[in-house]
């Protein structure tokens, strides 16, 4: 079997954390204060998944990458201005009010439906990528649920590396306890890989990739299907921001031992 892949990357978007994000309660449920004002970015886990997909496709001739992105359309359009310069893909946008407080089952349903609607998708070549903690506040369930709804049983989470073997199988490194990886070998597609950070740096902005992508991205955005998310699937009793402290100083030529000792003291105090 030739190593030609149909790689689908599932993604959401998140506000660019330019400032401390403040949760608040609205009639529609929890939200982030001023979220509409903040620029959005592809959620970081999904971003890594996209770069890995692009890298894999570039080394497997004939392969193709789809980016299935569930987010409010106006924000998605803004995100594409950055992402589309970095990797080649075909966008499958879903215009939906998904955010960090959306129910993972509902988001997974929207993503699975969008994937099933992709014309020409060859399931025997399907690698389903996504961020292992995307769209679920770190719970790590959304991609698993997408895979289950699509009937994909070979699932890997916390993936940092995929290595294609000569026989078409591939080795996957998954994060496990203790900062170690578990190595598994999968016979071949279809499979689901929920990515951690991977090993690839963020690709440089490439204007030619951007130009080529945008010829399909803008028409796709204009034809984006809308999908409502049920509001009653999850109820939040309370939402609080993480505590954080910041003390910044400029210190020059200070021995690292002294810096470490001060950090330790600070942590103990906290």
């Amino acid at each position, binding site marked *: 079997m030739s190593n030609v892949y149909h790689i689908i990357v599932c993604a959401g978007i998140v506000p*660019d*954390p*330019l*400032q401390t994000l403040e949760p608040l309660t609205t009639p529609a449920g929890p939200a982030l204060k*001023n979220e*509409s*004002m*903040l*620029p959005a970015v592809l959620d970081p886990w999904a971003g890594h998944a996209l770069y890995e997909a692009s890298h894999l496709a570039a080394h497997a001739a004939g392969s193709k990458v789809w980016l299935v992105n569930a987010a409010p359309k*106006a924000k998605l*359009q*803004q995100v594409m*201005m*950055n992402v589309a*310069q970095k990797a080649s893909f075909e966008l499958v946008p879903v215009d939906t009010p998904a955010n960090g407080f959306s129910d993972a089952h509902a988001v997974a349903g929207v993503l699975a439906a969008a994937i099933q609607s992709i014309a020409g998708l060859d399931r025997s070549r399907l690698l389903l990528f996504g961020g292992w903690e995307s769209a679920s506040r770190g719970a790590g369930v959304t991609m698993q649920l997408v895979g289950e709804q699509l009937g994909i049983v070979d699932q890997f989470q916390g993936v940092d590396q995929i290595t294609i073997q000569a026989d078409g199988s591939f080795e996957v490194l998954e994060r496990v306890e203790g900062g170690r990886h578990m190595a598994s070998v999968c016979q071949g597609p279809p499979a689901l890989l929920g990515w951690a950070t991977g090993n690839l740096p963020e690709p*440089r*902005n*490439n*204007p*030619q990739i*951007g*130009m080529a992508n*945008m010829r399909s991205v*803008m*028409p796709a*955005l*204009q034809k984006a299907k809308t999908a409502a998310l049920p509001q009653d699937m999850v109820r939040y009793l309370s939402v609080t921001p993480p505590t954080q402290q*910041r003390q*910044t*100083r*400029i210190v*020059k030529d200070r021995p690292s031992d002294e810096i470490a000792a001060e950090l330790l003291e600070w942590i103990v105090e906290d």
Partner: protein
Amino acid sequence: MSAAATSASNSVERQQMSVDIVGIGFGPAMGGFLTTLSRNLLKQDGTPRFESAAAPGLPLQVICYERADGLAFGVSGAVTRARGIRASFPDVDLAQIPMAIPVGNEKLMYLLDPIGASRRSLGFRVADRIIRMLASAARRYDHAVELPFTPPFMQKSDGMIFSLGQFNQWVSEQVTSSGLIQLWPGMPASEPLTEGNAVKGIRLADQGVRLDGAPGEGFMPGMDVHAALTVVADGPVGAVGRQLDSRFGLPENHHQREWALGMKVVVELREDSGLETGTVLHTLGFPEPEIFGFLYVHPDRLASVGIFIPSWMRSPVRTAYRYLQHFMLHPYLWKHLQGGTLKSWGAKSLQESGRHGEPLLAGDGYARIGEGSGSTNVLAGSGVDEAWTTGVQLAEAVIELLEQKKPFTRENLEQAYVRRRRQSWVEAESRIAADSRNGFQYGVLPGMIGMAIAGLTRGRISLPDKSRPPCACTLSLEDVYGSRVPASELQEMQEDCALRGASLHDRIMDRCGWPDIPFDGRLLISHQDALLMGGSVQAPPGYSNHVIFVRPQLCESCEPKLCVEMCSGQAITRGEGGVPSFDREKCVYCGACLWNCRAGADREHGNVQFRAGAGGLHSAQN
């Protein structure tokens, strides 16, 4: 860029791309241009109105590159009469834009010095004494008086308060939703492509290079983007615009010598701050007589608070950040700001030569719009609306030329674009404003009197122009502080700071009685914390340094080093041997180093080159 790097850059094979129109810099001017253009690219039946010459069979190919990594990066006051903006959106309630609100209560305030550390001339001291005597009977006295009226030329009472970042973001959404125009942030343009006297497009910045510009790991030469028309809107310190000025020169008797550094914070006010939404305060008198300030109240208890440090301020002690903190702590403002939280921070150079700084507006294959084209009205202190309008004017001209199938030659652009501009309110008002600030070359009070005369006589009377390059105006430490601090002590401070690699302004200000800033961790924070809490300073890897000290030997003996004192992000520090050191990961792209250099052999230009680079401060609320 080193000689080797320059050689490599010139000899490398580059990707080529052809479009019809390429724009550089996304701000209000480009917003006006693309908004107007995008509405005219389709026929009523939805088919393209103009066919691309660069890609036959396709619609007109329009693409715009922006250095910053997002389109909500702008820094501005910004209070504007919004005449041009409203004309572009006649059916839109502009208050729907986040942080936008119509101007409500507008005041001009004179702030006295409650500390006694400010450098006040005799005239100011007399005025202060009289005001204090009169005010001593008043029950509430906050070391400030409201001037009886705001001069008509300064008034913005029919205007809007914007966050420029939010405004730019909103405009970009309108523009890109058409699907007809591509906006690419995070992509700096390093230079114009020229053939003879014609501009043929732009060269994007090289990636994968070392800090000195030499090819490094993953070297990706910047693409050459060829276009029939290059629209230059990269602002007053933009690399493409400045290289055009260098290549083609400025029109006779024009100069770009008047600058200011604007620095602002966005504050979330406490609930009982006492400030009404829509309030606009203009201030003068404090923290130094030369420093003007502002406070604008947005919806949702947000306020923009900031100051301007003008190039004609002759003191070498000119740190905007510390002055901004003292400004906020003035009793008249602090009673409102106390208990607030800093949400955003930013700084920007303003080209304040106005009409005198206007470059060649059009040439073969290119046109200039926005602040870099000298559109700012220096009398009204207004730039956003003027910049927007010049973009609209160029778009109307481009559509006219496309309809007539005329090429973008200098003659055609002058006829279609420059003529429109000359006949507009932007030009009429810039002529009134042209010489209004001449008086500031003589001092603060003559400057204010000169502005009033020019404004009230509609520019017919003004003081003579004695402008000099900013670096030639700056006095020595002894000239400015000699009456307060013995020369020997000043010398000692200077030597000690040089030895320790520290900047001088804090030492001088402390010595002259400016109190320590009572950091509260929320609004009053250290300069470095402002970089972290006021947004996000982006410095993507793989780009070269964009601030270059061209002839380092000239920097060695330069004292005091204004590039260090004035650096908004503390990105420029004292380096070994007296040559400043630049840290691009702290640079907020304010461009102050460009006009605060005193070391250049040619004083008109200084020893600092401000080149193309990616990133900078990113905050959506400025």
